[in-house]
Structures are given as C-alpha cells and as structure tokens.
C-alpha cells in the first residue's frame, strides 16, 4: 500500500450537520488519541461524520469496508510472491499507523472475530502494531487514531463485537436526526425547498414506525437525500418517493401499499 499521506487527505469540507455535541467530543477524544466507536442505523451519517472530523482535524483518513472474508493480513499486510522471492506489502491499518492517519474500519462486525483482534495492541496504551510475519513491531505515529463503526441493528448472536474489543473504545450513539434537523439536511444536500423536504421526512417517519413489524430498518436519511435529489431534478414527487424510499426497503406487498398510501396522502 502506498504510504503517500497526501492522497488520503480530505480536501473539500464535507457537509455535516451536527446533531449534538459530537464534534467537540470527538475532538477531545482525538486530542487524547482515544479510539472511537460510532454506532447507529444504516444511512444515518456515521461515515460522513468521520470524514468531516478528518477534514476538521486536517488528518488523512484511511477507510476500510469490512467483510466476512477479510483476514488479518488484509488489514496488516502480507508478503507477495515476486520473481524468485517475496516482497512485503503494508495493509491499510499498517499504513495508517506509519503515516499517522485516522483509520476508519467501517461495519467492523462484518469482519470475523479472529480478524478484529489484530487491532487490540493499537487500541490500548501500547499503541503498537506487531507484524509477526515480517518480524517487525511498528510504534504508531503520534497522529494515528482508530475509528470503527457498526450498526447495532444487525446484532445477532453471530454478529456482535467481543467485550474485549468493545471495551477498548469510546463510543458515539448515532440515530436518525430529529425531523427538523433532517429537513435541514435534505435541503442542504439536495437544494430542495423546506416544505417538500419536510414531507419526505414525514414519509420516512411512517416507515420508521413500522420497524419491527415487517421492516428491519426504517428509511435512512441517505435514501431521503436520494429522493430529494430526484425531486430537485424534476422527477414527480410521488414517483421519486416510490423509487427512492419505498421500493429499496421492502418486498412486502402490504407494507409497500401502506407506504404508497402514505405518499399519496402526503402529496395531495
């Protein structure tokens, strides 16, 4: 992995609407280099928040989307076969520790538990990363910080973080923003007027009320932004809602009908 810190910088300011004091708190955590965990449902702004903080702090950001097939060497690095011999290649976590970036492990629960333990030495007072294959011990750069995110909605017996992992982090609990805030976000992200945006938010809330009654997850802020962008582009409001809000989240005919009806009565 290339260790050019410049390419990992966030250049333009990402739009982020704070919901509370999370910005100041994150800054405090960073000052003390405490590892941070960001929890919340899908599409509520976790990744955007981390991106925004990286920009605000002026640090490079290395994001890793975790998945089931990821092994420890995908994070740390591995030897590659080359000609007659081998060459070591740093993984994203190692790179971040070397250059002093914020390493963001997105949806960490998706990774297998034997993979997640490699972050342990980096997340306590030691702040080191042992590369046992290479026989090297990296002391983390003073600017290095580890941030992970996960969605407690997925929580099942199979997919949960170990206590030993959880207890290494400070945590933020995110949720979908309040209706007014969410309206502001929609306006800002899409350029839509406030009245239309508040209607979208209303439909979103209808779906969130149905969570657990046939819906696993309500309509996320992200989907609402999509709908708002479609409407701003001139698509009929009801069509845009059906396309961006209803169809993606459910295959259940009854729920679809109910949400469609909500769309109809909202856009009279």
């Amino acid at each position, binding site marked *: 992995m290339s260790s050019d810190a410049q390419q990992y910088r966030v250049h333009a300011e990402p739009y982020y609407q704070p919901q509370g004091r999370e910005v100041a708190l994150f800054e405090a955590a960073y000052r003390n280099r405490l590892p941070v965990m960001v929890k919340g449902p899908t599409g509520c702004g976790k990744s955007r928040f981390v991106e925004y903080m990286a920009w605000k702090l002026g640090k490079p950001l290395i994001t890793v989307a975790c998945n089931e097939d990821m092994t420890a060497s995908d994070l740390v690095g*591995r*030897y*590659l*076969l080359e000609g007659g*011999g*081998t060459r070591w290649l740093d993984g994203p976590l190692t790179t971040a520790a070397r250059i002093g970036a914020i390493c963001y492990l997105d949806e960490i629960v998706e990774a297998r538990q034997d993979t997640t333990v490699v972050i342990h030495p980096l997340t306590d007072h030691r702040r080191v990363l042992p590369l046992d*294959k290479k026989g090297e011990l990296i002391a983390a750069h003073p600017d290095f910080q580890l941030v992970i995110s996960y969605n407690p909605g997925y929580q099942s017996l199979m997919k949960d973080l170990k206590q030993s992992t959880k207890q290494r982090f400070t945590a933020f609990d995110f949720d979908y923003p309040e209706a007014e805030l969410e309206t502001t976000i929609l306006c800002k992200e899409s350029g839509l007027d406030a009245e239309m945006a508040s209607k979208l938010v209303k439909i979103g809330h*209808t*779906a969130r*009320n*149905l969570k657990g*009654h*046939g819906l696993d997850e309500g309509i996320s802020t992200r989907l609402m932004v999509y709908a708002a962008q479609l409407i701003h582009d001139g698509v009929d409001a009801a069509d845009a809602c059906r396309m961006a809000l209803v169809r993606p989240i459910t295959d259940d005919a*009854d*729920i679809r*009908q*109910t*949400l469609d*009806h*909500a769309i*109809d*009565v*909202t*856009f*009279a």
Partner: protein
Amino acid sequence: MDESTRTYWARLDTRFPLVEAMFPACLADAHSVLTPKGLDAFLEAGRLIGKLGRGAEPLLAFLEAWPAAARVVGEGMLAPVMAVVQGLQKSPNGRAITPFLQTLAPVAQRLQAGEQLQHYLDLTLDLMARTTRSIHGFHTTYPSPGLPDFFAQAPTLLAQLDIGGLRRWVDYGVRNYATHPERQKDYFSLQSADSRAVLQRERHGTLLVDVERRLDLYLRGLWRDGDLLIPYSTAFDQLRKPVPYYDPLGMRLPDVQDDAQGVSGLDRYRAMLAHMVGHRRWSTPQIADNWSPFQRMAVEFFEDCRVETLLIREYPGLRRLFLALHPRPAEDACDPETTSCLRHRLAMLSRALLDPQHGYRDADLNDFVARFHDLMTPGASSTRDMAALALAFVAKTRRPSDQFANVHFDDTVIDYRDDNRHLWRFIEEADEEQSFDETRRHDTQEEVQRLPPRHYPEWDYHSQTYRPDWVSVYEALHPSGRAADIDRLLQKHAPLAKRLQRLLEALKPQDKVRIRYQEEGSELDLDVALRSLIDFKAGSTPDPRINMSHRTNGRDIAVTLLLDLSASLNDKAGSSDQTILELSQEAVSLLAWAIDRLGDPLAIAGFQSNTRHEVRYVHLKGFGEQWGDEVKARLAAMQANYSTRMGAALRHAAHSLRARKNDKKLLLILTDGEPADVDVNDERLLIEDARQAVRELERDGIFTYCISLDPRADAYVSDIFGRRYTVIDHIERLPEKLPEVFLALTKSR
C-alpha cells in the same frame, strides 16, 4: 270506482273484495308505467293469477308488484315471470307463488335490468327442479322445502351478492341439503351457520380479514396508533346499519366494504380508521346530561369536522378522501315547512367546514364556517370550544320544524364517521342507555372435559370450492395401556430389529460441513496452501495444515406418522390370526424404535371419524416426547372404531408439522382403506378432499406418503397421493415393510 276503472275491473274477472279495494290504486300506478299493450297483458296476467285457485293473496301481490317491477326491468319481462308462475303452479310448489310475487318488486330493484331478472328467473326454476323430490314407489311428489324461504330472502341476498354469487350460494345449498328438508329450510332462510358463511364468501367488496394487516400497518405507520380491529357484520341488519366505533376492546369496523364514490374498500377502511384516530388524539369527553339530543348531535358534527381538519393538516391528501366519501347535500333539498331539517343543515355545515369550494350561500352557515376557521387557525382548538360553537349554531338556526317526526335523511349520513360514543359522559344513568356491554352474565355451565374443536374446511370437487369450517376435529391424548405389551412385541421382532439396525447405520446422510486446517483430509485447501507456500518462500515455517475434509451435519427431518384407526382395522389380516390393528401396533412400534435410533423428531397420531361433526385425532407420541414407557403404553391401548375422514386428519396433522423448523417434513399415513364416512354418500367426495389436502400440504413443504394395506387401493390411492404410496399386499409382513419404507424414503442418495 269510476266508469273506465270498472271496465278494467271487469277484465280482471274476479270477485275478491280485498282486491277490489286495492284495484284503483294499482291501476293508477300501472297506467303511469305501462303502455296500453302492456296494460292489457298486465290485466290478462292478473286474470290468470286470480284463477289459480290460491285465494286473493297472489293476485294482490302481483297487482302491487308488477308496475313497480316493470318500471325498472321493462314490461317485456312479464311473459318470463308468468312462465315461472305457471311452472310453480304445475309443480307441487304452488305455495311459493305468493312469496315469489311479493318479493318481485324489490328483486327487480336490485337487479335493474331485464337480462339480470331473466337469470334470476332461470335460477328459481332450476332450484325448484332440483329440490322438488319424488320418492320412487310412492307416487307422491314433495314440494321444495326451501323455495318459499328462498323467495323471502331473495332481496336481502341480492343486496349483497351479484347474480353469479347467488347462483353459487343456491348451488351449495342444493348440493348439500337436497336430502334434508329441515336443514334445507334453515339454509335457504339464512338460519344455518354455513349458509351465512357461504354468503360471506360470495359477497362482493373488500373483506376486513383480507386487509387487516395492511390496516394495522396503516395505523402504526401513519398514525403511531394500533388496536385490535374487530369486524361487525353488516349483512343481516337491514333496519339499522351498524356504524363504526371504538371502545376499550378495540376498533370496530364493518366486515366488508364495497367500493363507493370511486373510493376503494381499503381506502374507506382507512378513512374510518383515520377518523377514529383523530378522536383518540384530540377529542376529550364531554358531560352530556344537560344537553338535548339535538345539541349533542350538533356538537358531534362540529367535533368530527375539527378532528378531520386536524387530520388533513397532518396528511393533506386525506381531504380528497374525506370529501369523496362525504355527501354533498343540495342546499334546497329539505323543505323546513314540512320536515325536520336539522340533520340536513348540519350535514351541509359539515361539508362546508371541510370543503373550501362548498358553494353554499346561506349566510348563517357561512358565518359559522368562518367562526370555525377562526377557532382552528391558532392551533388545535378543543372539544369544549367546538361544543360552545355548536350550541350557538343550534340556537341561531333553530326552527320549529326541527321537532317534526318527519326527518330529512337523504345525503346526511356520513358513513366513515364513528358513532362518537366516546365523546359523552353521563353523570346520571339514563334509562335509554344500552348498558348490556358492561354487565355480563357468567355462565355457570360445567366445563366440557375436552379441548374445543378445531374447524377445517372440506373440498367439494363438484363446485371446486371449499366448504367453510365444515369438519370439527377434536384432539385428545390417547388413553394408556400396558407398556410391557409393546416390549413383548419388539422382543418378538428382535431378528428384524437387528437387520434394521444395519440399515440404520448406513443412514448417515446430508449437510456436508467443511472442516479446514487439517493435516490430512480429503481435499487440498487452496487458500491455505498458497499462504503456506508464501511463508515457505519467505523463509518462515509453513503451516502444514493445508487440507480440508467434510463431515455431515446429521439429518433434519420431522416425521409425523398418522394412523387410520377406523373400525376395519379390527378385521383379521389375510390368513394370519392377528388383526390388522395388532400388526399395525407391531409395525408402528418397530418404526418408532428405528426412528428413535436415528434421532429424527417423530410424532404419532391416530384418527377416526363419526360424521363431520366429530373427527377424533388422538396423540400417541408428541415431537418432544421420548420413545419410552408412556408412549408404549399409549400404543398398547390402540383401539379401532368408526370411519376414515382422511382430509381433516391430514390438515390437522399438517397444522402441527408445519410449525416445525426442520428442513424436511414427512407425513406418513398408514391406512387400510379408502376415505369414507357415514354421512357422505358420494364416495368420490372424501377421496377428492384428501387429494386436495395432500396438495395443500405439498404447498407447505410437507412430503406426504401413504402406506396402504388395502389390496384394492390401486383404484384410488394414486388419485390421492400421486406416486407417493406403497401398497403392502402381504399384511403379515407389515412390521418389516413399514420401517423399510421409511428408511428408503429418508435415505440420502
């Protein structure tokens, strides 16, 4: 009677004094509707009916009914109507002529077209022909028992069914009760339960049960509310239409809703629910003792409009829905000199409060609309404010005629609104209060000792429909006997058991699971091998565990063994001196033992039936029970009785099997004969029903397999089970065959 009336009267050629009194009015009516030619035919028909020898009643009914009927279906329909009258007269069903003619006018009102009436007439003739019976040997023909009742119910029926639905309803009655005069009467007079059930099934419109989940989601999603939705029947109350309401038990809605005013049944339900939610959110109960009924009514109208205005603020699209369902009373429809117009005024006001384009010119009304909106502008207002406004409205617009008995009802019924019973508190109990909801008598009847029956439908292959809730299945635990008897039987089959044991060993199939990181295994694990190679080249110690192997993760089959315990099991089996029952006991014991060794969850149950009202389903072993003395004791006490109603038993067995979480579900049926019962004459009926039940099971992912002991089974068993059956010819060999069949079925390839 004047001169011209008298000439007409003469043509009727009758002397009933009752008819004479009625005749001028009927004639005037007829004059206004019929052409001269039609009038001639009318009088001629009247003359014929008068001469039938059945008294004045049919003639009276005819003279009154025909002009009204002809107005809708056209006078050309007289000939077919008379054909029916003559048909009835020629058959022993003459008594049905009067009810037929009496309901002719309302029936014609419902059908609206001559063509439709013709269908109705054909249907009645068909019904008559099929229910009029003669018994051979006695040269007597009995009149149709159900026909007069059918005519009496015809207007009610047609209010809810189209002609096709009516035909199916009639068909059902004729097919099932042709030989039962009393039950037939009950059916056609809408007294019996299944008559109502079939009617319910054939009705047009949106049934509440079909959309219940959608409405639940609607309440929860849009309104963050939720309650039990309880249907009430709208079919049988003609005088007072029940109105939606809610109480602590739940929200009561009509059981069926037709589309109306371009609004679908589902949306009408939604409008009702939204309105009720509005009351639940914003209404506060008022003390009503000091208000007159008129004042209360006015308060209700204002309050209804207030909550609807608030609902519309929440979801603007509701305005369109409410206005579509809200009547639009014409401003001058009610004459205040002769009728009480309060309802009309309030309905107009209600319309005006919701509809900005109401277009009413009345100054008072517009004034109150403005005052209402003034109250609503700053916020949600309150029930109290509405009450004050309503009292002012009543005082301002009061008329002496409001007290008249003749009330203007047209266009004033707003049927999606509930009855507002929640709005009123009475400090003093008034005697008009209907308080039967609160106090309930407790029946001190003794508890019946068995579980209540479960009802299952039965398939009627004639009409390709289900008979709703036709069969009652009673569940029970089988009584116990001595477990040692079964042990003795198993002992007897020890050699066979030993052979089975070998078969069982071979049965270790399915679900391969990969085990990685093995030094020795069946396959090379490429990922691990590559990693080891790299380690090796890099100079570190390679991991030698580069192979993987597979293991099986056990079987996952739930089995229900269903035993036919009908009386024929008591017969001796072929040449042996054992009864089929005893052989079955041996076979079942062996099988249960074998399945226990395999570890598959197994349930054993038996069934027998004594008419559709009593199908017994006895549990011998439950899924959770171990194969032990208790189960053996029950097996030992197995008794055979009664008949074989297989379909219901299959459905009931599937009911519990369906709930199992296992991958594969197997239902084994051990039977010695075809499905039959004492209350069924048509031998195909239960076979077809069983076949349908097997199909239902298949749909639910349950594999059904039949082991038949009937040497003549080939004639029907494949009709029921397709190719999933085995016929065991040598019943004596059942004990060894049954486990073999099972093992073969569940063996993995």
